[in-house]
């Protein structure tokens, strides 16, 4: 068993899943919306990047940017259709959840109808080189995935720490009611939040498309992984999501090597159940700090 292989796979998976999970986590804690249309945003961004690569340019960074922009657009659409009309209505949490699921159903079926069931592939964004060190080989897509996702996540988190909009979003995460009292518009901020998280989903879509293909239902598995990690790390906590991403990435890499890829979801489910039985609000979430829905 190659320890370096496990480590590098863990890091790779942790980066991509962490990107997804942080998006879901931020959406939940700032808007109170469980965005289960993430699979649709994912596929939407993938197809957006594919269209860009087909018709405009195949240069790596440009395709990446197109994917991120398409994801942000998808997020804004979800916000306009599923969040704005019901965010102040009674029973919002459960209705928002169902609304995003309905959008997911409509959106993925629309993609299936428009693009057909055949999956698409993106050009190689990070080129075709590899880096050889004693004992291990780093391929271009692995290095590129890790570097890009860490870089963009760092930019997003830095932006949330230092900018005016980021301050608004963090205020909403801490206490949405008080935030609205001091003049932070829920509707306006929700567009920023959904744009940012959609962009993160788009980033993950383009990065994962280096390994898998783009298909209408291809967003389902990443969404399940992202939701599981967000849940496991504690909804609303970025640090918790990072820790959970590392734990579940390690679990996936170990399972894949020891007993086979088909058991990945089962072991992951068991790990999550154990963690949640010990800490019902996830790794970082404390019981009393959880967002009241």
């Amino acid at each position, binding site marked *: 068993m190659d320890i370096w292989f496990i480590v590098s796979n863990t890091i790779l998976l942790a980066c991509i899943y962490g990107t997804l999970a942080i998006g879901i986590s931020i959406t939940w804690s700032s808007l109170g919306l*469980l965005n*289960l249309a993430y*699979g649709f945003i994912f596929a939407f961004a993938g197809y957006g990047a594919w269209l860009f690569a087909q018709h405009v340019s195949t240069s790596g960074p440009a395709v990446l940017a197109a994917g991120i922009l398409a994801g942000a657009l998808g997020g804004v659409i979800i916000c306009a*259709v*599923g969040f704005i*009309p*019901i965010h102040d*209505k*009674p*029973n919002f*949490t*459960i*209705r928002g*959840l*169902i*609304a995003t*699921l*309905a*959008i*997911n*159903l*409509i959106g*993925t*079926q*629309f993609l*299936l*109808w428009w693009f057909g069931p055949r999956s698409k592939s993106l050009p190689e964004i990070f080129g075709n080189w590899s880096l050889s060190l004693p004992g291990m080989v780093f391929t271009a897509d692995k290095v590129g995935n890790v570097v890009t996702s860490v870089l963009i996540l760092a930019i997003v988190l830095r932006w949330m720490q230092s900018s005016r909009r980021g301050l608004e979003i963090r205020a909403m995460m801490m206490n949405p009611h008080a935030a609205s009292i001091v003049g932070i518009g829920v509707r306006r901020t929700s567009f920023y939040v959904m744009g940012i998280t959609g962009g993160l989903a788009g980033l993950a879509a383009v990065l994962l498309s280096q390994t898998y293909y783009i298909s209408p*239902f291809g967003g*389902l*598995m990443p*969404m*399940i*992984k992202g*939701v*599981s990690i*967000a*849940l496991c790390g504690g*909804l609303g906590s970025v640090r918790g999501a990072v820790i959970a991403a590392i734990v579940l990435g390690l679990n996936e890499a170990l399972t894949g090597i020891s007993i086979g890829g*088909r*058991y990945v*979801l*089962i072991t*992951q*489910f068991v790990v*999550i*159940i154990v963690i*949640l*039985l010990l800490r*019902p*609000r996830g790794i970082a979430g404390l019981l009393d700090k959880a967002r009241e*829905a």
Partner: protein
Amino acid sequence: MSIDRGIKWRNPLFVWGGKRDVEELATIPFRSHQEIWGGTRRSATKLNAVGRLRYYYKWPGHGEAMWNRLRYWPTRRRVLRLRGEYNPKTLRAEKTIVDKRPIWWMLGLLALAIAPLFTPADLQNTLLTAGATFGIYAAISLCWMLIMGTAGVFSLATYAVVGTAAFVTALLAVKFALPWWLLPPIGALVGLVFGGIIALPATRLDGFYYALLTLGLNELCRVYFVTSKEFGSANGGLYGATTYIPEDWSQLGQLLLAYYACFGLMLLALVLYRFVNGRRLGRILRMAPEKREAFAEATGVNFRQARVWVFLISSAALGFIGGFYTSNFGGVAFSIFNFDTVLLGLAMLVIGGVGRAEGAVVGTLIVVFFDQVLNTWGPARFMIIGLIMLLVVLYLRNGLFGIKAQFRAWRDKKKSERRSTRAEKGGEMLPEEATETEDKSVIYQRRHDKMTRDHLKTLVSPEIIEEHRHSLNGQHSEALERLLIYFRTRPQVEKYAIMAVERFEGYRIVALSGHRGVAPRVVEDRIYSTPDEACHGVFMRRVQDLLES
């Protein structure tokens, strides 16, 4: 102006030859106070004749018939909730059906039971197959409704339980050639075990967290079953189990048998729903709705245990349905684990309305109609179902069957809004003030006062003032008399008085404080030389106060 019109007031006391009396004085035309009264009573708000009563048909009841009730033997439970009463106006004995839902249920089930007789011949195959599917999915939806509505656990693992039970029973049936009637009980056992495993986190997690946890469970099962060797990874499912449908029957007979068997399954699920939701477990859980769990716990209601019980019962029932599914179709396809299947199942619950059996059945009917009958439409039919689901979630509080309550709430809101806009008249007291005033007659007193003042303001004119200056005492014209009576009946506070600065030489106007021991207040510097002038000065001040009020 009115001087030009030449309206005069004749002093009836003139003939007595008083010193300062004049025969005629210019005055103003008569103005009725009824105009002001009518104007105040009139409202600009349009009143709509909106029906607000709930109409019930009143059945005649006489003597014993009034108290006769049909009951489920051997219990005391009534089939219909009736109310016997005497009409307070006519004293006629009448019976009212308070809850008509059992009647609608009977009619609906009767329609489903005789529906195969009325299917057109060219659509028979499609419709009867869709009908059988409807029966199975309605049963699944009812069990899911128990989990989601009654137990309040937002589980998305329902189809994982059904599919697992179906696959396990299919495998056993193929391997050991089990008879068909053994499959549902085995399925129930599988469902119970599976439900027991996934109920473990439900004891500690709240609704939404549980939804996120079970989101991946279907995918987990799909990946596991698709990639395993035993469960036929190549041909899209596992088929070859024994079925209860005899091979030697005609096609129509087979279809009808499947239809009625699935219909029976749905009836069984309805009975289960009734017995879980309507009895002890349902009662306990209704005591502990979302966000009020702490209260229920404090009052000694063990809602967690009840939740797990409902979850386990429903899981066993779902497993039973899975076994029935296998024995109906002779096997099961992997598509039962698709995420879209979960979404369609959720659409069935959401469209009808969470927490009601009729919602589950009607929602299933709508979704199955689009999914099975219009199956030539391809992805478009899923988009239509998704759109219906989205619109229902965006605009309805609790599905189609919640429309009635939502409409009533909306109508009540509108009614109270209209009521508040109609409250424009009065105006002398703010609505908040009016509700907090203990003596309600004060409100009407003030309103009357305002109307009086509005009327008196129209009477003030140069002629009247001139008349008052001319004759302070004695007979006055009608308008002036009204003004003076009003002024004289004002309360003591801020009433004016005349103070003699120096007798027969200087007088000034003061305002009484209205309180014993508090000296009057000087209101102006002007000193009048005669009492009459001062008196007219007081009159002018009062007129000014009236016009300013």
